[in-house]
């Protein structure tokens, strides 16, 4: 909880920097605050916060996910300076809102009670509705915001209704009391209905098909850095909440919902990958790729064991790093070319080799090519799920077989042409090159020594 408080205070300070017209400093303030929060996240929780344990508990898993979310946010903020360079006057709101969303994410990592879950989901979502529309002059950005808000509000309704039914049958909001209830009354109809409604709401939040309809439009319309934030930090938070609710709260009725998740995974993998293949716009392709990764992540519910949360964290971290690697490249191209079709990337490797290599390795990591972190993530999830449902793993593998085609398309456009289409003398900012080197190193090192993740983030 101390991490939560620090990030919240940072967000307030960053916001007030804008009030006093010092918006240009809010990025540095935010990064500083996040670094402090990152340091604090390694320390044990203060005694004082034990009294809140029934609502919010900073468990080992919560700590792990908090750390990766903070690292990803810091990396994204490094990219912010260039990405938001046309928002000179009100940068501070953007950073503050992202930090508020991160607060919501951290609430989701530690929630012990359905009330905290609801609070976390809302704190996470509301800043995002604003952020999606932060490019005020762009119609697509406005569309994204409205679409996201309407659909999100609808999903929240499902969540609340589900919570109400679960509360009505089990008589408690507490996750572990619900866990106990699910073990004892697995046939309670109202309880099961509540569980399914909550599943629908959370599947919406993680954009699992067929509840993903909002995500391609929202991801494409939002400013690219915000899209990267939604694909990485928001996905980490929402998926961990999803995982926690289903695998702890509704553990006793696993048999009732696991088949639904299985079907959703199959639909997600096929739909998202085939749609991804059909895109001609790189940003929209990445949106579909992001949806398809939820399908792979969903396999975590099959063959649950005590390493599942760790494997989930590893996969999400690898995926988020890769997302930043590609989105970074996309932000740069979008700035120069004002569009993000595949052709806009033509010959990028000749002018910005570092950026292109980072994007290529990121996409290979997303596709699960060995020696990248993405492979180790996929491998652990597949190895877990194959013990109970080999069929789903087969579907997932077919999905990645389709996905490689659209990742390759973008890599080929960047590397294969003999000449670059970037005639400008403008060079990529230094921070981008630093982040690119970091991403390349992190993806390769985690792919070669996967245990470093456990030792560095404390497991």
């Amino acid at each position: 909880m101390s991490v939560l408080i620090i990030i919240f205070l940072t967000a307030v300070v960053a916001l007030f920097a804008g009030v006093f017209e010092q918006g240009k400093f809010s990025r540095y303030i935010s990064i500083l605050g996040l670094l402090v929060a990152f340091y604090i996240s390694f320390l044990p929780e203060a005694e004082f916060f034990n009294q809140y344990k029934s609502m919010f508990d900073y468990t080992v898993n919560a700590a792990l996910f908090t750390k990766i979310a903070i690292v990803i946010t810091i990396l994204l903020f490094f990219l912010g300076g260039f990405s938001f360079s046309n928002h000179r006057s009100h940068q501070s709101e953007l950073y503050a809102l992202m930090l508020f969303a991160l607060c919501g994410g951290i609430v989701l990592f530690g929630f012990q009670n359905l009330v905290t879950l609801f609070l976390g989901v809302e704190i996470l979502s509301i800043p995002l509705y604003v952020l999606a529309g932060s490019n005020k002059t762009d119609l697509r950005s406005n569309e994204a915001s409205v679409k996201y808000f309407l659909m999100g509000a609808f999903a929240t309704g499902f969540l609340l209704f589900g919570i109400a039914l679960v509360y009505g049958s089990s008589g408690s909001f507490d996750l572990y009391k619900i866990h106990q209830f699910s073990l004892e009354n697995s046939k309670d109809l109202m309880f099961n209905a509540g569980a399914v409604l909550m599943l629908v709401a959370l599947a919406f939040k993680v954009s699992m098909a067929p509840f993903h309809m909002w995500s391609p439009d929202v991801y494409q319309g939002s400013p690219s850095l915000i899209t990267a934030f939604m694909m990485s930090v928001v996905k980490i938070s929402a998926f961990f909440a999803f995982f926690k609710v289903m695998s702890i709260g509704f553990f006793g009725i696993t048999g009732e919902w696991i088949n639904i998740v299985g079907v959703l995974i199959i639909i997600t993998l096929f739909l998202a990958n085939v749609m991804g293949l059909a895109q001609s716009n790189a940003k929209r392709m990445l949106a579909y790729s992001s949806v398809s990764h939820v399908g792979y992540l969903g396999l975590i519910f099959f063959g649950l064991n005590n390493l599942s949360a760790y494997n989930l964290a590893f996969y999400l971290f690898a995926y988020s790093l890769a997302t930043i690697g590609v989105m970074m490249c996309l932000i740069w191209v979008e700035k120069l070319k004002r569009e993000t079709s595949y052709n806009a990337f033509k010959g990028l490797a000749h002018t910005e080799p570092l950026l292109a290599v980072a994007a290529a390795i990121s996409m290979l990591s997303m596709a699960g090519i060995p020696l990248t972190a993405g492979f180790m993530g996929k491998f652990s999830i597949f190895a877990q799920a194959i013990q109970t449902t080999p069929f789903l793993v087969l579907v997932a593998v077919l999905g990645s077989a389709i996905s490689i085609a659209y990742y390759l398309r973008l890599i080929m456009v960047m590397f294969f042409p003999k000449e670059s289409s970037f005639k400008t003398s403008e060079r990529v900012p230094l921070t981008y090159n630093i982040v690119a080197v970091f991403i390349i190193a992190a993806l390769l090192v985690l792919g070669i020594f996967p245990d470093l993740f456990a030792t560095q983030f404390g497991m």
Partner: protein
Amino acid sequence: MSYLLLTLLLLPLVGSAVVFAWKNSTSKYLALGFAFAQMFLSFYMLANFDATPTVDGVLQYEINYPWSQFIKSNLHFGIDGMSMVLLLLTNILTPLIILSSFNEKPGYRNTFYGLILLMQFGLIGVFTALDGLLFYIFWEVTLIPIWLIAGIWGQENKKIAFTTRFFVYTFVGSLFMMIGLIYVYTHSASFALTDLYNANLNASEQTVIFWFIFFAFAVKLPIFPFHSWQPDTYTYSPTQGTMLLSGIMLKMAVYGLLRYLLPITPDPVLGISGQIVLVLAIVGIVHGALIAIVQNDSKRLIAYSSLSHVGLMVAGIMASAILTVKGTLMTEGGEGALVQAFAHGINVVGLFYCADILYKRFKTRDIRQMGGLAKVAPKFAVLFLVILLGSVGLPLTNGFIGEFILIKSVFDYSKLAAVFAGLTMILSAVYLLRFYGKAMFGEGNESVLSSAKDLSAVEFTVLASLAVFVILLGLFPQPLIEMVNSSLKFIFTSMMN
């Protein structure tokens, strides 16, 4: 912990990093230096290698180091006879392949040579890994550099289509292998090779795993119905890429077949699955040879001839495997396949280089428009003929002994199958001699011939070294056969239990 093997493994990686950073026209000499160092290192290791150990399948130069606490997999590398043969092939061919590119205009940049060395790193990893997961990782590592080589320097108007097909096809194959290996892993103690051999799988599970893993190898080899990526990829890749693909990379699949597929899933070999593979391989032999006869594109012709030769290797391996699982220990198929793998590597690299030399002289790959080069290029005519006859399998050349053992092992299993498998020797003479005749003899175009030169120093060095190997191994195949014998005995014995 063997530092020699560690050096052998890391030297190409270091070399590749250095060459990538060396943004200079001299990067090719640097790459060649690394490749030669690697070659001499493997010769040194060969000199200290016990080719006939007292215990079958014993590993030398072993490295075993724990890797991850969450995955039961070790960084386990080692060399036995089988690995040694393919390591030698890799390390002999790589410097020659690098050397063969020296005359290219405009010159290749550092990235090209860096990628070749990266490829070598992956290949050495594949041939020395003794752990299922490591094998898979290195197997995939080889794919990225060759794909980039083919894509960046491939034929301009075709490259997007053929590289995509090549990558997706092989990647899908590998993914199936990954599922197969993971499934075996969940039923065994760890990814260690011996644990995978002793995995607790029933017959129907084994059949599914067999086909999953076989799919990866069938695509890489390629075996008959999975070969549609191959002719285009071999034809439109730059010559050095084709050499790497056909000379070394497809041997990964021969190696994987022997080292992983057969010992892990021996049961289906006995059933219908083994026979289907045998039949597919033999269909591939005849199919490839017949298409090669009517090909007019020189590179495409060699690609189909490669399909035909690879089919024979697989047929030999499967015939011996079926007999072994039935109860009589037969290792001839494996021996023949490995000897032939070595010989085919040398020959096909030579043939593709000859095709490249012809292309440089005639500016076309169409063999109908060539002719008469023997008059103006006698050195080339001789060396081309030596390599070509090696590929035909003339006695006293390297191709003969491997094909002979392979046909014999197919014969032991089924005489009818041997009739069809034996066609490879006849048909390969037909299409290769037709190729030679059209390209080297006849009238030819006077205006082209008047300006055509004989071999340059670089071309001569590469072709002559290959020709030396063709004749040397044709005269003295015994050391090679002895070297692979003990590891094959170990593998085939473990299939019997």
